[in-house]
């Protein structure tokens, strides 16, 4: 029995509707540290306008954003700041790692630069480039929008990335013996004390 619906009525699942709203109004939190920050600003400027894709305002407060774009290299001194801001953001939240330095450390394989923020944060989308062109960043946001549409939030399916996150932890290199200094890291202290049990050693899982 076909139902005649008037033109201004849409039927959908709540999941898809929520995902559609969320993906089309991603407000970025620009965590711009270095050169990629300039390309991020250029993406938001008038020639490659990011506002077309729903990223209308670059809110600098983590409490008002859902997308954190880490643009630029993250050094040891800055990483706790980055992690604190990630924890301050409300769910649902996504993270784009923009540029080679944020994804893998880039040109800077030095004592101070973290070799990829995905060692310490869950990342949803990587944008290669040094710096990536604004079109590449826009493509990344479009791909993230597709990802958000697929992996809903009502049922919490994005939390299914736990297995993927675990595998990434195995990439932490241990060529030289780590000088483990747990004095600042309560989580590390927990893990180290958990070593006395049958828990797997840090960095290999």
């Amino acid at each position, binding site marked *: 029995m076909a139902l005649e619906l008037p033109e201004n009525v849409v039927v959908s699942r709540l999941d898809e509707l929520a995902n559609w709203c969320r993906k089309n109004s991603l407000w970025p939190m620009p965590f711009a540290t270095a050169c990629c920050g300039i390309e991020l600003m250029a993406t938001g400027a008038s020639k490659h306008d990011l506002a077309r894709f729903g990223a209308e305002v670059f809110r600098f407060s983590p409490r008002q954003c859902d997308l954190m774009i880490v643009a630029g290299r993250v050094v040891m001194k800055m990483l*706790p700041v980055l992690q604190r801001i990630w924890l301050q953001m409300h769910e649902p939240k996504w993270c784009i790692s923009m540029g080679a330095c944020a994804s893998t450390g880039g040109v800077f394989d030095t004592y*101070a*630069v973290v070799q990829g923020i995905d060692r310490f944060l869950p990342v949803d989308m990587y944008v290669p480039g040094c710096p990536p062109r604004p079109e590449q960043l826009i493509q990344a946001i479009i791909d993230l929008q597709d990802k958000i549409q697929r992996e809903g939030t009502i049922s919490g399916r*994005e939390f299914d990335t736990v297995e993927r996150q675990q595998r990434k932890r195995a990439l*932490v290199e241990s060529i030289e013996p*780590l*000088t483990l200094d747990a004095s600042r*890291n*309560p*989580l590390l202290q927990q893990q180290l004390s958990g070593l006395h049990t049958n828990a797997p050693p840090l960095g290999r899982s």
Partner: protein
Amino acid sequence: MPHTPPPLDNVLQSLASRWGTLDVSTYRNQTRIVVAESVSLEVLEFLKAEGFDLLVDVTCVDYLEYRGALNRYGLVYLLTATTTNQRLTVRVFVDDPTPCVRSVVPLWEAANWLEREVWDLFGIHFEGHPDLRRLLMPEEFAAHPLRKDYPLQGRGERHNFPILTRHDG
């Protein structure tokens, strides 16, 4: 046509009359003098009075792996006179185990952060500096990274952070 800076003969003569013969050399139109650490502050004070009012840079070179080096650390002071455009490089050599020089902050306020950076990256102590603490590296960092015996990739400090997963927070 590289620019030739104005000659420094008058300055070098006054320096020589005050402190005797100096170790002066020139390279590509730049004049460098080497002074001992014991007179470095006085020489720099004298140079400031002679007109070198702009301190361009304070830096250090670690000569650990340099062929033919006699001392480990060479501090470099780059001075400029804004009125006459003269430039002079003053070098002071110090050694392990406790490399220490007197701070020039009383002469040029610009030296404040430049000396902090040399302390941070090389471990050279500046006596008389009002606030000698690390500038670039975190406070808890233990080593002096720009020394030649510190590896480029560090000693694992860049991996020591807690890992946040999707489930946390």
